[in-house]
């Protein structure tokens, strides 16, 4: 899931600028789970905007704001409220915000910062495990991703800052390679440690990414 966080209200008001009337768009998927753009947060935003002297023409929670066709269709269903607004304030990830900007030629304002692809540890606690690097090496690293878990993304073992199995950037955090090492040793797959891993192929993840499945 895409982990997102609300921008401070002052930042949002600054981005809205002269736009006096606003239509609010939330997302029923990731932003709802992150408590950054679900029903409750959209309602709170409406209250906050009212208090700041802005008019809210209406709101909608889209079932998956990254679904471009659905966003277009759902916004057409609220045509009048959308038309009445000076700006659309989107409480979804960057993908969702751009489904909106692609569907409606109107000022689109981002209410959230998108942060990472996250696992859910427990309610309200998210952790990045995967960096979407385009060539998965988890089969060779005992199911623990050094591209993500190591702040330097090192592929061939720990850096010189590791001590007592801890990371140089955060003494509370276990070194990614300490985790991989103990798992690999437990699995009896030490041979995976001797192999020098070649540089990553960044051509696998060109920007902007595109994928079209064969018919």
């Amino acid at each position: 899931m895409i982990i997102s966080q609300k921008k401070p209200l002052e930042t949002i008001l600054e981005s809205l600028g002269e736009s006096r009337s606003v239509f609010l768009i939330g997302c029923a998927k990731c932003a709802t789970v992150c408590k950054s753009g679900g029903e409750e947060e959209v309602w709170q935003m409406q209250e906050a905007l009212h208090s700041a002297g802005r008019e809210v023409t209406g709101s909608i929670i889209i079932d998956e704001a990254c679904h471009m066709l659905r966003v277009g269709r759902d916004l057409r269903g609220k045509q009048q409220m959308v038309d009445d607004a000076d700006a659309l304030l989107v409480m979804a990830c960057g993908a969702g915000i751009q489904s909106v900007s692609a569907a409606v030629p109107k000022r689109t304002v981002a209410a959230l910062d998108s942060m990472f692809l996250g696992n859910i540890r427990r309610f309200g606690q998210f952790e990045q495990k995967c960096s979407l690097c385009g060539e998965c090496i988890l089969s060779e690293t005992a199911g623990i991703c050094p591209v993500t878990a190591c702040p330097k993304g090192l592929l061939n073992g720990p850096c010189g800052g590791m001590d007592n199995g801890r990371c140089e950037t955060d003494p509370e955090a276990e070194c990614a390679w300490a985790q991989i090492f103990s798992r690999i040793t437990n699995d009896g797959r030490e041979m995976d440690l001797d192999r020098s891993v070649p540089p990553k192929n960044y051509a696998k993840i060109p920007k902007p990414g595109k994928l079209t499945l064969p018919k």
Partner: protein
Amino acid sequence: MNNPLSNLHRKLAVSEFVFTAEVCPPKGCDTSLFIQQSKALAGVVDAINVTDNQGANMRISPLAASALLLREGIEPILQFTCRDRNRLALQSDLLGAAAMGITNVLALTGDHISFGDHKTAKAVFDLDSVQLLEGIRMLQGGTDLSGKKLEGAPSFFTGAAAAPEAEPFELTLFKLNKKIAAGAGFFQTQAIFNTVKLERFSSRLNPSGVKIIAGILLLKSAPMARFINKNIPGLRIPDEIICELESSTNPTQTGIDIAIRLARAAKAHSHGLHIMAMGREEVIPEIIKGVI
């Protein structure tokens, strides 16, 4: 031995004990103090390490600073990290280094951006230190990392970093072996405080033929030692050393005495010593004198 690539290479190859020291290039383009400090050391050490945006703090390019030392007839060890350069920049700077006559290169990953003075910068880490060593070996073989042929291949005496006191040791060992396999001819180690751990390190690595230059850190006070423990990755000064400095009436001299004591102990398990004086480079000759 085939043609030695540098004085450092020659001495290590014939098992002469070497001394290296670290001089931090300036933050700014006035290199007069840097040159002056390096000149003062040139007679007592075999080569001078020129750090690369040490601790992720922006300073003058170590490539330029190393070239300036060469111009003064001083042999540099160019420290070269993966933090600030992608594979194009790494290779192109290495070719530049070779063209200017730099031969000793220390291939490093680099301290994390979060320790330095540009915390909002993008860290590169396109390659890691093992991949950088392999890249250097490819350049020496006459091709770049994409397999394209070079006009003129460089020749480097290549080294790498090691942290003999880091635990668990076995976790660090497999990477050290990869570094040796990728062409590291010498290791310069983090500061050594525990000779037993250095002995463990050298007994495991000596069979490979890699040369070990053990790190010696000059401390001047207990607060400084605590500051290092808190802020400098890879350096862990044990409590008993901090206590020794704290209870001393002359901590500056005690720091020198500790450095000499550790250097003497480390000598038996190494092929050379690397002295990190943390800005007090003028004391280095006294430490070396105390060891020889």
